[in-house]
C-alpha cells in the first residue's frame, strides 16, 4: 500500500473547521490558565528516556517511542509533560519564589496496548503548581479546571475526587503483599463488589463480615456528603482516615463556594497510586465515554530531580475537550469571508489594495 493513502495507526491530520475548533478550545483554556497567573512553559518534544523513567516510573516509561541520539544515548518522544516541567522546576527554578505556576499545551506520544483503536499522539493541555501544600493549591487547581470547562460551555461536567491514601491505608491495614495489592486494586477499580467480597474473605480473614460488606459497598459509592459520612463510619485505619478528612475539607470548601454540584467524592477510584501522593481527580462530561482529563497531587515527583516539594496539577486531552464541545453545543467555528480582490490583469493595483486592507486588519482573498 502506498504511503500516500495510508497513515500510521494512532496519528491524525486536522484541517478546516476542525483546526479552528481545536485552536479555539486551546486558546480558551490557556486564557483561563493565564487568568490564574499560570505562565506557559515550552518544553522539548523529546528528551532522555531516563528522565521519563525517573519521573513516571519505569513501567510507564516503557510506553514511549524511543530512539538513539548520535552518541548512542537513549531518547524518547515525550509521553507526558509533567516530568519535563518537574525537572525544570527542580533545576532551573531552584531559587525562584514558591509557589511556581506553569501551564503547557502540546502533543505527547504514547504507545499503549492494546492500541489498535487508541491514539498514540495526543494534544495535552495542563497546569502544574509547585511549592504549595494541600488544600490551598488543590482547591485552586480544581477551580481552574471547573472554570476552563465552563468557559467552553461544558456546564454539565462532573469532577470526581479521590485520594490515594484511601486505598493505601486499606492495603496496609490488611497487610497485603504486592500481588494481592494489585488484585485488590483491580477489583475496586472495576467496582466488582461480589468478587471483592470473595477476595477479602480469602485474603483478609481477620475482617468481620459486617466490615467487609460495608467496605465493598463503600467502593461502589460515589457521592456527596453522605459518601464521606459512610467512609468515616467504615474505615478505621489512620492513613485512610486522614485521607477522608483531607477530601472532606476540600469538598467542604467547594461547597461553601457553591461549586459542590459539580464535584463527587469517589471511594472506588484506586488509579494512579504509584504516582500520586494525595488528592486525585477525574473529569467527565456527557457524550464522552471516558474521562477527558484528570490530575492530582504528586509530592514525591520533584524529589526525583532535586529536593522534595509539594506539587499538584492536571492535564486534559484536547481531543476530549473538542469532542465534548461538539456534542454539547454544536459549536460553529466561523471562517469569515473577508474581502475578495480581483486581479483583473493589474497586479500592482490589486496587491496595493490588498496591502491597504491588510493594514486595516481586514481579511483579504486574492482571486
Amino acid at each position, binding site marked *: 500500500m502506498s504511503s500516500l493513502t495510508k497513515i500510521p495507526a494512532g496519528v491524525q491530520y486536522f484541517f478546516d473547521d476542525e483546526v479552528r475548533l481545536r485552536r479555539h478550545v486551546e486558546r480558551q483554556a490557556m486564557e483561563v490558565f493565564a487568568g490564574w497567573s499560570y505562565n506557559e512553559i515550552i518544553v522539548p518534544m523529546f528528551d532522555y528516556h531516563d528522565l521519563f523513567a525517573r519521573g513516571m516510573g519505569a513501567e510507564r516509561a516503557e510506553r514511549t517511542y524511543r530512539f538513539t541520539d548520535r552518541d548512542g544515548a537513549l531518547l524518547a518522544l515525550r509521553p507526558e509533560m509533567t516530568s519535563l516541567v518537574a525537572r525544570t522546576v527542580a533545576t532551573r527554578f531552584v531559587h525562584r519564589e514558591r509557589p511556581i505556576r506553569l501551564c503547557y499545551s502540546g502533543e505527547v506520544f504514547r504507545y499503549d496496548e492494546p492500541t489498535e483503536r487508541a491514539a498514540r499522539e495526543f494534544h495535552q493541555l495542563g497546569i502544574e503548581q509547585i511549592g504549595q501544600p494541600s488544600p490551598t493549591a488543590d482547591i485552586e487547581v480544581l477551580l481552574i479546571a471547573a472554570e476552563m470547562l465552563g468557559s467552553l460551555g461544558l456546564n454539565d461536567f462532573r469532577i470526581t475526587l479521590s485520594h490515594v491514601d484511601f486505598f493505601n491505608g486499606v492495603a496496609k491495614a490488611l497487610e497485603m503483599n504486592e500481588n494481592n495489592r494489585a488484585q485488590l486494586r483491580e477489583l475496586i477499580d*472495576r*467496582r*466488582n*463488589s461480589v468478587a471483592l467480597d470473595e477476595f477479602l474473605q480469602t485474603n483478609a480473614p481477620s475482617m468481620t463480615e459486617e466490615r467487609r460488606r460495608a467496605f465493598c459497598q463503600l467502593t461502589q459509592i460515589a*457521592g456527596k456528603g453522605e459518601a464521606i459520612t459512610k467512609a468515616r463510619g467504615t474505615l478505621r485505619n489512620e492513613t485512610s482516615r486522614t485521607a477522608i478528612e483531607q477530601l472532606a475539607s476540600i469538598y467542604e470548601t467547594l461547597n461553601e463556594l457553591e461549586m459542590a454540584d459539580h464535584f*463527587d467524592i469517589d471511594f472506588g477510584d484506586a488509579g494512579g497510586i504509584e504516582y500520586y501522593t494525595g488528592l486525585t481527580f477525574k473529569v467527565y462530561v456527557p457524550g*464522552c465515554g*471516558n474521562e477527558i482529563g484528570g490530575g492530582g497531587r504528586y509530592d514525591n515527583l520533584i524529589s526525583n530531580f532535586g529536593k522534595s516539594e509539594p506539587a499538584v496539577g492536571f492535564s486534559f486531552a484536547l481531543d476530549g475537550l473538542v469532542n465534548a464541545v461538539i456534542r454539547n453545543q454544536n459549536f460553529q467555528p466561523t471562517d469569515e469571508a473577508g474581502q475578495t480582490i480581483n486581479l483583473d490583469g493589474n497586479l500592482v493595483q490589486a496587491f496595493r489594495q490588498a496591502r491597504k486592507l491588510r493594514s486595516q486588519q481586514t481579511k483579504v482573498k486574492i482571486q
Partner: protein
Amino acid sequence: MLTIALAKGRLQEDALALFAKAGIVVAEEELNSRKLAVLSADQRFKFVFVKPGDVPTYVEYGVADAGVCGRDVLLEAKADVHEPLDLKLGYCKIAVAGRKEVVGQDYNLLATVRVATKYPNIATEYFHRKGIPIETVYLSGSVELAPILGLSDRIVDLVETGRTLRENGLEVIDVITETTARLIVNRASFHLKRDAVSKLISELAEALNPS
C-alpha cells in the same frame, strides 16, 4: 434513560428474564419484532441487541451506558469498563482442549504450540504465563474442527457440558478460567448518570439475591 447493550443469542433470554425479575420488563410484541432497539415498559431503559463480542465496545465508548456480556468476552476485549455485578447466568469454562493423544503430553518449551481459538488474547496470555511459545489461529466458529483436521495442536474455547468436545474426540486439558454473564457499566455514565445506574445495580442485585 439508560441504554443497555445486550448480547444476542446464548445469554439474551436469560438476561431479559433477570431484568424482568427486577421489574424491568420489555413487552412481548417488542421482542418479537425485528427491532434492534426496544424500550422497557416503564420507558426507563432502551435495550439494544448486539453481537456478544461487541457489547464491551458499545459500553466502553459510552454509546450504551451499561451492558450484559460474558466474562470471556470481557477478558478477550480487555475492555476498560466497570463490572459491578456477576449475574450468574450462562456459566461456562474457558478451557484448553486437544485430541486424546495429546492430553497427557508435555509441551515442548522450545517449539511453538499452535492454538485455534476465538480468544487469541486469553490463549496467548495463558500460554505465555506458562512460558510456552504460542501461535494463535483465529477462528470464529466450529473451533473443534481444527485439531481434527490438523490445523492446530490444541484449541482454547468455551466449554459448557463438554459434549461437543467428546463427540469430536477431544478432551479438556486444562481449565483456564470460568465465565458467567456480567453487568458492565461505562466509566463516565457511572458518574454522570449515577442515580439511574446505582438504581439499576441494586434492582438487579435484589433480583439475584432477594433479601
